């Protein structure tokens, strides 16, 4: 081996050793980051939606029908309130969906769970809705890379054991509260007891609201479920729209 070849081999070995040390350091840092995360394991459900019974839905006038997001203090502008009322009048009641959009998904009848990593927190609901909250320091995408979706784009950071989430680019939907697609959401997610959790949600909507609206959604731990089980929402859709009305179709035996 020539002198230059030996020098080159030594340099390569040094670089590889350094990168190995760097990788080990990063791994150690990541393990330390994991250790700082709170323990939110288990299943949770919005308090207003828990124990709905086997029908999965309460009567229209039952207190459980009211979720935190259906409060009567939503600060709508006069113009937006009129628009919502017009949409209500034109509602045929025949709409169907596969999944609940944000923010309504935070107060819906499905059980959900958290998956926490240093880089992101994932929320997964029984209806297969998923929210990704990136906590790796990134910002929201540039406008050219961003489009509105039912769950929007979420970035967050930890303040102690509280996850602070910033969400934009949420499609307007027919689920309460009625909002424009310009709404901006800030959430503070945290456990408030062994079996209690809350989402302190502030919504700013320059089109729909006269001022920011703050609401706190409480959750309870679900202890009578051993695992998450998903299904396809259209596996057995027996509620077709016939002559402009939803019906219960006879079973196909």
């Amino acid at each position, binding site marked *: 081996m020539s002198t230059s070849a030996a020098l080159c081999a030594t340099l390569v070995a040094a670089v590889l050793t350094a990168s190995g040390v760097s990788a080990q350091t990063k791994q150690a840092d990541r393990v330390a980051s994991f250790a700082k995360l709170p323990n939110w394991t288990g299943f949770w459900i919005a308090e207003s939606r828990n124990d709905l019974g086997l029908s999965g839905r309460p*009567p229209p006038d039952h207190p459980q029908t009211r979720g935190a997001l*259906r409060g009567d203090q939503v600060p709508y502008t006069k113009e937006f309130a009129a628009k*919502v*009322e017009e949409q*209500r009048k034109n509602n045929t009641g025949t709409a169907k969906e596969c999944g609940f959009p944000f923010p309504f998904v935070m107060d819906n009848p499905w059980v959900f769970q958290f998956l926490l990593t240093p880089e992101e927190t994932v929320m997964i609901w029984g209806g297969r809705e998923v929210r990704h909250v990136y906590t790796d320091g990134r910002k929201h995408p540039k406008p050219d890379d961003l489009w509105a979706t039912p769950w929007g784009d979420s970035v967050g950071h930890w303040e102690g054991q509280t996850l602070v989430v910033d969400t934009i680019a949420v499609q307007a939907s027919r689920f309460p509260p009625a909002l424009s697609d310009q709404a901006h959401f800030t959430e503070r997610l945290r456990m408030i007891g062994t079996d209690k959790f809350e989402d302190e949600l502030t919504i700013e909507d320059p089109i729909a609201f006269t001022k920011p609206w703050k609401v706190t959604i409480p959750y309870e731990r*679900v202890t*009578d479920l051993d695992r998450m089980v998903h*299904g396809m929402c259209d596996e057995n859709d027996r509620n077709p729209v016939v002559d402009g009305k939803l019906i219960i179709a*006879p*079973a196909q035996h």
Partner: protein
Amino acid sequence: MRIAALVIATLLVVAPSHAHHSGAIFDHDHMITLTGKVREFQWTNPHCFIQVVIAGASGEEEWSVEMGAPLQLYQAGWKPATLKPGDDVTVVVHPARDGTHGGLFLSATGRGGAALGRKQ
């Protein structure tokens, strides 16, 4: 604020409390009791259904009783085999508004009033 309150109050009536479709197809002011035999128990998404055959005024009638999703039933202690074809069952429902043989599940018992699942 009055307008805002009105809007929300009306949303309460029309917005669904469950995914997939509105509950307005059921008559929440009336309950009927169906006593008969299970023809099929559909453990399916988006809704489970009990197909129950009862003795109607003009012969046998098959009713479709809509329930929640499998995950919701499972959490409440029901399983795919909780009801089997031929089982005696009594089901209380809110009937469909259109008069068809369908309804929204409220409660059910098995032979002799036996409880089904862990809770209802």
